């Protein structure tokens, strides 16, 4: 069902729900706008997008008007030009003449359109108001420059779901204000501001934007691997030396989003001046003796493939506990779903109208999960049910129903979902499983009421696109295998599209490419992980390695896409490929391996240089390629659920602060969260500690000491315990019982 009409004499057609502007953009027809932000609903406040429709008197706003069958539309005429010119004149009322010292100069919509519509003087003025510049952490707001387009508030509400920014009304006096405690410092508002009003505190005045070179790449901090541009320039005026640095990160803000880590955590490069031959020789010797390579998932597909080759040739054991549990989880899932990969992705989540989330710290594990849910809620009025033991204040606007459960009861709750959504014919083939379910017991032990589950289930009626998002709490769950199988059942028969969010940047790639082992044999080589001989991109190890903003390669994302990573900064030392070369695997560049990634896992034979990375006019992203989902053989045995273990006493949840993922984000100068235990005042009371006290405890076999802090944004009796400040990643269940000892 499409609507046919003409724009500027060209016949075009619209899908239902598309506006005139969207069709025009898709067709490459230019209509100027000031307030339109494609990723949110139209603000319709600027009137720049007006067009003429034959037979309709007056102008029509193209951004929020759908076309009608047979309409004849003109996007340009003398009258329209005059109208738009007048709008620009009004935008320029009292606008400070300070382009010379404005960070936005050179990429400012107001500047561009003022020139485009030939406004060469300020013809009107109004009484100037006294206003104050504001600073909200990474944001700097200059109300004098603000044109009140409302893009920032729209993005903060609809994309981020924070509802931090709002308009303080008052006619000409109105300005933007911030409920600062709700702000997650993502910088989305900066990226969409068409003028210099919402600016980056750190970037302010450090470079004129046209001097920066944009290097399109992928964010290295979580499994979304968001598309971004590193913007680089030489350091200092003595450009002969040629040393460069990253000044800022930008993205295609009209269509895509970034979280605070991606936008502000960019300077984690490892600067080395030359190849350290002595260290290299020492490390080679260690490689000849080593039996195991331990590595993290902060690695490209190509390097993971290289490690796999090393394993095949030299018999190393490959250890990556975090990816290992994910790998097992995914395999168990496939063994029931019948397909090698899960069916959903975050784009589907953003388009869904019903979402169940389980086992995921929504804001911090993978911020794009949060963003996708926020978009689903705002665009499709989605119903979001979140199963999690900890209630987070910041998710108020995103989560419709919080099903707060006891730690450890995930398996039983998943079984209840299966019970509710798997059709009865299918249940017949899993009789023992379904018959053994004791709903009363589960609800009692998990402290999720039966009526809560009923409400969740009832809401799914008439929903068209339900999704199920699973997070890292489940992969290391003692009952992970069975949880994965139940999720497989829900995808195959329950009508859900499932997303199994990879726990680290390239966990998915590692899980698909590498044959991982469970037990390490010493001696161990650690690549960005602990070992007897350590190669690290953080420096200070046995051999320096390039950081992920200094490497070329690809990542496999949560969306099951293979996306390109380009080097923003040069690297002058040795790389993993040099070691592989010395160990008999001949290759010139790591990216020569991109086309060799295993086809039997769904990768395609596409060379690195042929990977596309762009957007179409109407926002469709063409980036890398999708993994091929493959059929795998099904087994149908879902185990009877285990008794729910009790977790009483002081429980810590392994979870990092928003935007602080690992030692790399910690190294960057704008992300400064410290590693403290965060808990509610209720937790503090139960554990008998005060905010600011230092405690000692043993967790997962490791003795640690940390400061404790009370957070007003948390509720409940479980506290957050970060692990970003260490290479040692635990693959145990994320909730652990500990005993505090005051220092």
């Amino acid at each position, binding site marked *: 069902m499409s609507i046919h009409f003409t724009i500027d004499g060209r016949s075009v057609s619209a899908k239902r729900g598309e506006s005139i502007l969207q069709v025009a953009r898709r067709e490459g027809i230019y209509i100027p706008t000031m307030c339109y932000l494609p990723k949110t609903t139209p603000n319709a406040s600027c009137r720049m997008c007006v067009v003429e429709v034959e037979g309709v008197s007056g102008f029509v706003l193209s951004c929020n008007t759908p076309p009608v069958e047979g309409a004849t539309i003109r996007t340009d005429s003398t009258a329209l030009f005059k109208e738009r010119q007048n709008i620009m004149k009004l935008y320029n009322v009292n606008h400070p*003449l300070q*382009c*010379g*010292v404005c960070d936005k*100069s050179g990429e400012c919509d107001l500047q561009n359109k003022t020139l485009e519509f030939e406004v060469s*003087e*300020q*013809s*009107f*003025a*109004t*009484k*100037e108001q006294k206003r104050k*510049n504001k600073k909200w952490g990474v944001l700097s707001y200059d109300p004098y420059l603000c044109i009140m387009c409302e893009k920032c508030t729209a993005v903060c509400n609809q994309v981020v779901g924070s509802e931090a920014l709002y308009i303080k009304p008052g006619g000409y006096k109105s300005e933007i204000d911030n409920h600062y405690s709700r702000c997650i410092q993502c910088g989305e508002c900066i990226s969409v501001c068409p003028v210099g009003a919402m600016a980056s505190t750190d970037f*302010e*005045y*450090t*470079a*004129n934007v*046209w*001097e920066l070179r944009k290097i399109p790449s992928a964010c290295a901090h979580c499994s979304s691997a968001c598309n971004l541009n590193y913007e680089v320039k*030489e350091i*200092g*005026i*003595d*450009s002969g030396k040629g040393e460069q640095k990253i000044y800022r990160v930008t993205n295609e803000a009209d269509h895509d989003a970034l979280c605070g880590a991606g936008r502000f955590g960019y300077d984690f490069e490892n600067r080395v001046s030359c190849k350290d031959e002595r260290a290299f020789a020492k490390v080679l010797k260690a490689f000849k003796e080593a039996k195991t390579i331990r590595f993290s998932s902060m690695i490209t597909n190509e390097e993971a493939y290289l490690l796999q080759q090393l394993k095949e040739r030299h018999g190393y054991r490959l250890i990556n506990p975090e990816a290992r549990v994910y790998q097992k989880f995914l395999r168990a899932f496939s063994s029931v779903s019948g397909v090698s990969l899960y069916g959903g992705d975050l784009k589907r989540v953003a388009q869904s109208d019903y979402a169940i989330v389980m086992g995921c710290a929504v804001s911090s594990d993978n911020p794009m999960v949060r963003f996708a849910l926020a978009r689903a809620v705002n665009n499709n009025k989605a119903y979001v049910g979140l199963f999690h033991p900890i209630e987070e204040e910041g998710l108020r606007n995103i989560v419709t129903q919080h099903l707060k459960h006891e730690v450890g009861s995930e398996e039983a709750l998943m079984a209840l979902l299966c019970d509710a959504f798997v059709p009865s014919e299918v249940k017949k083939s899993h009789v023992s499983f379904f018959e053994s379910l004791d709903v009363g017991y589960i609800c009692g032990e998990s402290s999720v009421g039966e009526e809560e589950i009923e409400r969740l289930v009832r809401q799914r009626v008439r929903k068209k696109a339900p999704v199920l998002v699973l997070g890292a709490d489940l992969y290391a769950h003692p009952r992970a295998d069975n949880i994965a199988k139940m999720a497989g059942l829900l995808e195959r028969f329950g009508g859900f599209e499932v997303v199994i969010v990879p726990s680290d940047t390239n966990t998915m790639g590692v899980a698909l490419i590498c044959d991982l082992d469970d037990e390490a044999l010493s001696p161990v080589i650690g690549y960005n992980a602990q070992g007897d001989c350590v190669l690290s991109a953080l420096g200070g190890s046995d051999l320096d390695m390039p950081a992920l903003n200094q490497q070329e390669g690809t990542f496999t994302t949560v969306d099951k896409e293979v996306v390109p990573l380009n080097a923003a900064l040069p690297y002058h030392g040795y790389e993993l490929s040099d070691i592989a070369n010395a160990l008999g695997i001949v290759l010139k560049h790591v990216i020569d391996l991109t086309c060799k990634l295993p086809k039997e896992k769904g990768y395609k034979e596409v060379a690195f240089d042929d990977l596309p990375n762009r957007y179409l006019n109407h926002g469709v992203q063409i980036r890398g390629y999708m993994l091929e989902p493959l059929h795998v053989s099904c087994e149908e045995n879902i185990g009877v659920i285990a008794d729910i273990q009790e977790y009483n006493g002081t429980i810590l949840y392994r979870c990092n602060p928003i935007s602080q993922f690992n030692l790399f984000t910690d190294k960057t100068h704008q992300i400064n969260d410290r590693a403290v235990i965060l808990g509610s005042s209720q937790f503090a009371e139960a554990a008998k500690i005060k905010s600011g006290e230092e405690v000692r405890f043993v967790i997962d076999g490791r003795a640690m000491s940390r400061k404790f802090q009370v957070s007003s944004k948390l509720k409940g009796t479980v506290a957050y315990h970060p692990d970003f400040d260490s290479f040692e990643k635990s693959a145990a269940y994320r909730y652990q019982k500990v005993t505090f000892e005051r220092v």
Partner: protein
Amino acid sequence: MHTHDTHEQHGHGESELGNRYISEHYYYVDIAPYPTTPWGKFSRALKRTLRGELFVGLWVVLREMFKFDIHTVQYPKEKLLVGPRYRAVHAMQRLFESGTERCIGCGLCEKICISNCIRMETRLDEKSRKEVSEYTINLGRCIFCGYCAEVCPELAIVHGPRYENVSEQRAHYIDYAGMLTPIDMAISGEQKEFDGFGAVTPHEDARVKQTPLAY
């Protein structure tokens, strides 16, 4: 007539354009045909040698020497005044009275520079203003085109009259401090407003329109 012939051969438009520069009283010099035979060339050389034209030139020099009315500038003891629109080594101006640096770090000079020889760095200063922290012009590459002075919205960068650029290095840089008017000169009013390339023209006052203000 030789030259004339070539003119005729060109297209219509171009010959007209060429003629624009030929005043009416100009005429073509009748040049005898060049000798082509070896003998012809030899006899021409012989004629030229013996005609004594060299002494004509020598005589002119001698005559002028004794007139004691010499126009030669005794450089470097004497220097010619250069016109205001002469484009020599750059200078950075300050505001009169306050002595504040005029340059706001807008970067337009760096952008427009045709030989890519300006590099600058800016930052946020203590008063939350944009400040130039480093600035340099590579005079080894500068072609003294004047674009930087012309584009500068603040009349900050100008071409000074200093045309002596002897340097021992091929790449000869000047930096911000070297170009900047010393502050005492600015405050005492010794700094001259620049009226050369890129400066406001004398009748500018009449053309300037006031920005409307409603206080």
